[in-house]
């Protein structure tokens, strides 16, 4: 075993990356899946190469073949697949190699980091046991040596307590820690090539930023080649040296990160980049673009090495001027949703005590206003959304919905029944929130029918009108949910939420399960509908860039409390709370240069000791 990686060996070669030897060379790689006795192509004639110390990002939306083609490198595809072409690892052909030879390569020369660290690690073995298993498989070492090695790897991936992590089961670690453990396992045999399949998709933004930092550090230390598979342009901008854009099984464009972001040649790449919500660019009519980096620098009095001082000051001034000029809030009318010192509990179940998920929340939404509720997982944002619809009891404080105090309302009582007629709700997963056995027309019409608003041909007319509003063909109303794409299903979800002409719309992460280009269209539709119909909206999301596009006001939640709220301009241009600042700094921007600035800023933020 070579011992060229130790945690404190920071003096790794500082030479420019992308100058190493070619590690992976892929020629004419095609992948087909056998579906119903037919070959359906997943990847067609791919060509690319990756050098040592270089990160190649393969970018594409779902179904583009980016994952399938990468799994094909190691023969990890299911048995109904067919692979052709050539995959050379340091000159050695992998396709068609014997099972034993491929096993030698797996885990040793080529390691994989998977998307979902919870399910990618075996839940019944400790993290340590799984790393030791890998180490001992490829190296002739004693259990003690393997353990020592595993501990060193856990230290390398910057886990705070490697001994404890070694003995922990995957479910005892947080999402970010699990992904670190996964990375530790992947690196445990010094792979020449690392395939990272959506390594940060399942993580919160601040955790994602940490993992991206870690991967960047490791890349510099280890000099491995990395293939990064992702749909997230921000992640690409943060990490990639070169980019291959895939669409429907074909690489439509390759180039350096700089080229692809600055000067995308293929129209699909252009469309993809345009569709990515870009924090600071949301809603043209809100005012001009917000320079989030400069705003953060101003708020934290940071100096950036990578940005000229004069330039930074100028950009900060611009921001301040824009903030001063921004229209003041003009609340009008009776609030649609009003929370005063609200605490929300998940009631106790058997021996599991009640859990207080939200505490001391104050929030007001006026008619026609869109309020974005932002936070990471476990922050309580969804809880507030649910309580607003009366799905969770209010433990303390008062909650008024469309003028009625529902804090003391009985579960499923008359009052809630009445209030709910004025609220529409759009859920996160469009597939599971529509009844699979009902045609979508019926799903849309059901609320109106139940409320006694319409029936017979009147109902049919209303359904048609709603389908028109969400820009779906009327003929779709007899289709079932599984016949629709994700974006179409979410349009149905929106139509259903609109069916009773609600005064308040509660949207819980309605676009986070969608591809960016689809998300962009759904968000645009949502925005137009909101403008036309004028409903107020509580938009719950983890994605600051989405809120930026839609919201008039932004509330930032952390650990059950609203830590900061204000207009979009106040939050983006002048964030006051350290947590908001960290959150803003963690969102990767789909622009390599800006992302470099932000990285530096984020490092300063963290170094300055804000928790």
């Amino acid at each position: 075993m070579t011992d060229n990686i130790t945690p404190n060996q920071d003096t790794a070669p500082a030479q420019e990356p992308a100058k190493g030897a070619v590690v992976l060379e892929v020629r004419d790689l095609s992948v087909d899946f056998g579906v119903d006795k037919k070959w359906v192509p997943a990847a067609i004639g791919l060509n690319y190469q990756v050098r040592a110390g270089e990160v190649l990002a393969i970018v594409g939306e779902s179904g583009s073949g980016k994952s399938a083609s990468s799994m094909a490198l190691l023969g990890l595809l299911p048995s109904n697949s067919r692979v052709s072409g050539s995959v050379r690892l340091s000159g050695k052909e992998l396709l068609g190699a014997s099972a034993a030879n491929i096993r030698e390569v797996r885990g040793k020369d080529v390691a994989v980091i998977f998307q979902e660290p919870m399910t990618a690690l075996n839940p019944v073995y400790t993290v340590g046991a799984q790393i030791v298993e890998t180490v001992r498989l490829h190296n002739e070492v004693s259990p003690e040596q393997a353990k020592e090695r595993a501990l060193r790897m856990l230290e390398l991936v910057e886990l705070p307590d490697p001994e404890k992590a070694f003995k922990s089961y995957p479910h005892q670690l947080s999402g970010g820690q699990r992904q670190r453990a996964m990375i530790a396992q992947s690196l445990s045999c010094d792979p020449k090539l690392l395939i990272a399949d959506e390594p940060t998709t399942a993580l919160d933004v601040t955790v994602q930023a940490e993992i991206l930092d870690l991967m960047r550090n490791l890349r510099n230390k280890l000099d491995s080649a990395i293939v990064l598979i992702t749909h997230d342009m921000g992640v690409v901008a943060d990490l990639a040296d070169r980019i291959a854009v895939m669409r429907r099984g074909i690489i439509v464009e390759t180039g350096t990160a700089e080229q692809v972001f600055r000067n995308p040649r293929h129209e699909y790449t252009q469309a993809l980049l345009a569709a990515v919500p870009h924090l600071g660019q949301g809603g043209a009519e809100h005012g001009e673009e917000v320079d989030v980096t400069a705003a953060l620098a101003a708020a934290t009095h940071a100096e950036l090495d990578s940005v000229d001082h004069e330039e930074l000051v100028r950009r900060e001034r611009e921001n301040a001027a824009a903030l001063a000029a921004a229209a003041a809030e003009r609340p009008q009318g009776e609030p649609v949703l009003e929370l005063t010192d609200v605490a929300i509990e998940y009631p106790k179940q058997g021996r599991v005590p009640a859990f207080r998920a939200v505490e001391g929340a104050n929030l007001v939404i006026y008619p026609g206003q869109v309020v974005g509720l932002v936070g990471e997982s476990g922050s309580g944002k969804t809880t507030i959304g649910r309580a607003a619809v009366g799905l969770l009891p209010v433990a303390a404080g008062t909650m008024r919905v469309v003028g009625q105090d529902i804090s003391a309302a009985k579960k499923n009582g008359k009052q809630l029944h009445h209030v709910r007629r004025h609220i529409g709700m759009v859920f996160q997963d469009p597939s599971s929130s529509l009844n699979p056995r009902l045609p979508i027309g019926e799903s849309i019409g059901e609320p109106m029918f139940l409320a006694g608003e319409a029936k017979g041909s009147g109902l049919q007319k209303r359904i048609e009108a709603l389908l028109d509003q969400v820009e779906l063909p009327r003929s779709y109303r007899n289709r079932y949910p599984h016949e629709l794409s994700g974006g179409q299903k979410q349009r149905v979800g929106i139509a259903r939420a609109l069916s009773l002409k609600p005064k308040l719309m509660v949207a819980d992460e309605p676009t986070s399960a969608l591809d960016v280009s689809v998300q962009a269209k759904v968000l645009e539709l949502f925005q137009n509908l909101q403008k036309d119909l004028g409903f107020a909206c509580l938009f719950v999301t983890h994605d600051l860039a989405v809120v930026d596009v839609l919201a008039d006001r932004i509330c930032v939640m952390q650990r059950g409390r609203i830590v900061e709220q204000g207009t979009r301009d106040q939050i983006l241009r002048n964030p006051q709370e350290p947590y908001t600042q960290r959150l803003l700094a963690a969102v990767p921007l789909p622009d390599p240069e800006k992302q470099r600035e932000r990285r530096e800023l984020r490092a300063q933020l963290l170094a300055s000791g804000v928790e």
Partner: protein
Amino acid sequence: MIQYILRRLLQIIPVFIGTTLLVYFMVFALPGDPIRALFGDRPPSEAVIAQLRQQYNLDQPFWVQYGLFLKNLFTFNLGVDFTGQPIAASLGRIFPVTVMLAVEALIIQTVFGVTFGLIAGLRKGKFFDATVLVASLVVIAIPTFVLGFVLQLLIGVQLGWAKPTVGANADWGNLILPATVLGLVSFAYVLRLTRASVVENMNADYVRTATAKGLSRPRVVVTHILRNSMIPVITYLGASLGGLMGGAIVTESIFNVPGVGQKLFQAVIRSEGPTVVAIVSVLVLVFVIANLLVDLLYAWLDPRIRYEN
């Protein structure tokens, strides 16, 4: 952990009182007079009957009878049955036989069920899988007494591979045929459970990770697929142990095994309250403790399960 085990053991008390009360009442409410039935066609004098009734407390109201039974139980005096034999002694004779039978059946159904289920699951949709699925369905569908007689005739009598009946001296060897019959139905369920579990786990992300680490197929199967697939199977096995112990009446009758099933059957026919309740009490204990063991095994197999205190 210890707190959890203690709490579970304490739960035995209400379960125990509830079941014995229920069973005692059911036997009490049976029509007919057990004492008269003892003498068949030649009724004895009324004085003898009255004396016997008094001896077995049958002249007392239900609650007194039940109370006396409980009192005797806690002083470890199970009394005598209607033939004058001490109940404790006959329990001591029949339970070892039934435990042997049940354990042998459990081993047979586990070993074969898990093996065939694993192979079928790994070869989902192939010939072996289809064959095994159909065969297990046939086994489930055929009543035990048919299966029992057929195997007895075929293997015991015609082929002579095993002893067709057991008789007084039961041991592991001559119990093999009844144990096979007893285990066959559960075997089919174990097989199907294992298969379903394996099919589900086979495509799990961590199995792909294990493959990507470079593990050989057998190691992936044993350490990552099989281990994770055993969790639902273990639950079923624990629950089936109770059934194997108490529900072997048909099998024990066919193969003439002097076990719990036969004894229980006779005692019910004779309305022998104390004997029935004594046997059922032991079975209840076995059942509750088997389930406790399963729950403890569960936590060992799946560390995500933690016991709340």
